[in-house]
């Protein structure tokens, strides 16, 4: 019995630890600075919707939001396309050549971003891909390709060979087998990978920080970071920025949490 109370208490404490900072932040985005500092835990004395006006009205955040949406959508789609093609091919190439190619591609997972960012920066600079959203999309693809291949190939290997053999017997070529058999059957893992990529690309900071100087090309995390410089201790405004930047994912999470959880842990455990 004692252990049950202990269990409840522990879960209660952890729930509070997770939720209180988030609730304080959310409430804080509707407060004045002095209200936030003197009553951090209470509801706003007076609801300051003006914070949102200021954040959304500032040219930076609006542009950043659009840029983030565009870059994320393109990055997720293209990474998924390249990775699913690769995963399909690798699952069907028999013997060591398949494993060698797979190993080579997946090795990239263990290289930290800071390790090759300098030559990458130089290369992108030479190609005129810095200060461009297309460049961001490209580097996003490159950075997540290994893990996406890892997850998708892991899944496509588990598809029964007989399906492919039956398709081959019916005279269906490799390309159509990919499109009409492998892809539809991999839908669960494609969805999981898509959400995984969505969270990563939406929140990506390092590459925008390296590649983007032009304020018009900033994405949300970068704009937020810049925000911090401008409003050093204006926490209500910082919080408003955070809420605006996080809202799409959080709303998606509330409705699709099962898929988010599956996505963010994809490849780590067998389902």
């Amino acid at each position: 019995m004692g252990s049950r109370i202990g269990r409840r208490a522990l879960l209660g404490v952890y729930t509070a630890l997770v939720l209180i900072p988030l609730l304080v932040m959310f409430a804080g985005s509707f407060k004045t600075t002095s209200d936030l500092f003197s009553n951090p835990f209470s509801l706003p004395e007076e609801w300051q919707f003006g914070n949102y006006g200021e954040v959304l009205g500032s040219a930076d955040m609006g542009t950043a939001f659009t840029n983030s949406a565009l870059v994320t959508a393109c990055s997720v789609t293209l990474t998924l396309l390249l990775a699913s093609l690769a995963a399909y091919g690798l699952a069907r190439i028999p013997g060591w050549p398949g494993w060698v190619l797979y190993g080579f591609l997946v090795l990239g997972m263990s290289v930290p971003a800071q390790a090759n960012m300098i030559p990458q920066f130089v290369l992108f600079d030479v190609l005129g891909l810095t200060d461009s959203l297309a460049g961001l999309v490209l580097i996003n693809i490159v950075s997540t390709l290994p893990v996406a291949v890892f997850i998708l190939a892991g899944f496509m290997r588990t598809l029964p060979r007989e399906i492919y053999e039956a398709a081959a017997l019916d005279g269906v070529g490799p390309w159509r087998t990919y499109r009409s058999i492998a892809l539809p059957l991999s839908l669960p893992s494609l969805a999981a990978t898509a959400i995984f990529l969505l969270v990563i690309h939406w929140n990506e900071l390092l590459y925008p920080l390296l590649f983007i100087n032009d304020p018009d090309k900033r994405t949300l995390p970068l704009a937020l970071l810049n925000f911090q410089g401008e409003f050093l201790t204006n926490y209500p405004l910082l919080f408003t920025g955070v809420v605006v930047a996080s809202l799409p994912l959080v709303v998606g999470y509330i409705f699709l949490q099962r898929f988010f959880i599956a996505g963010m842990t994809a490849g780590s455990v067998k389902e």
Partner: protein
Amino acid sequence: MSAPSTVRTGPAPTPARGTSAGRPRKHRGWRQRFGHPAFYLFPLPALVVYVIFFAVPTVQAFQYAVTDWDGYSAGYRSVGLDNFEQLARGDDLFVNAMTNSLKFMLVVVVFQTLFSLVLASMLLRNSRSSTLLRAVFFLPTILSSVSVAFVWKFIYDPNFGLANSALKSVGLDSLTSSFLGDEGKAIYFLAITQVWFHTGQMMVIFIAGLQQIPRELYEAAAIDGVGRWQRFRHVTWPMIAPATGIVIAYTTIQSFKAFDLVLGLGGNPPQGSLDILSTRIYTSFADSRFGYAAAESIVFMAVIALVTLIQRRTVKLTQSGA
């Protein structure tokens, strides 16, 4: 045996006959072994992108590391291993960053693994309340590091922060602190933030691992009258060893990525007390010391490789020793 040779037309008469029917025998053998040539076209786009923008730059990092290139000048000199020598000889900033990185990683790995395992074992059953709590605990994971950093910047704010006002309100004034301003402890406060950020994600991995343990094992243990600790030690622990390995590996890699968090928390408080390897490399890079930064990044890669290797060994040992 006088088995008719006609039976042995192919090495293994199973797969993909339809596509290669009627082709010369030699060709079919190739396809049996290496598959349809078209399969190689599928990974091609990914491989091209990966080689040009990932593999080659990774190799180039090694080339830059032996130069004094500043990133802008047309020319640069090869300086051999000078950069590495300087790092080893005691670049105080680098040594500090290295120490911080290792402290940070160790604390995060220990506590994040422990907390996520405890939470997972509490939320194992599929009741409505545990499903809800799992979702709540996982929530921080989907936020951006910058967002998380801003929230924690406010918690740690020495003057107006949540942590100090909470401590004061319950009469623990003696525990109030300047947190990130405290040179000696700042890195541990960063670790707390990181644990808050990712424990939920690791918990979910543990839940999946725990759910795969067959119930019969526990029933058998119960019949044998085994105590709680023994049951954990001899049934649960060995069964979740793979999940533990994954959690520890993930946690380590994530802890080296804490870069964004440091930047969001306001860069670098006194004496580089939050400086870790990734931020140090970035600073050298931003200071236009490309060659030096590349050398630092090589050491960084080596450290990660070494840590991963040690972890694999340890996990394997505990697995077999259990």
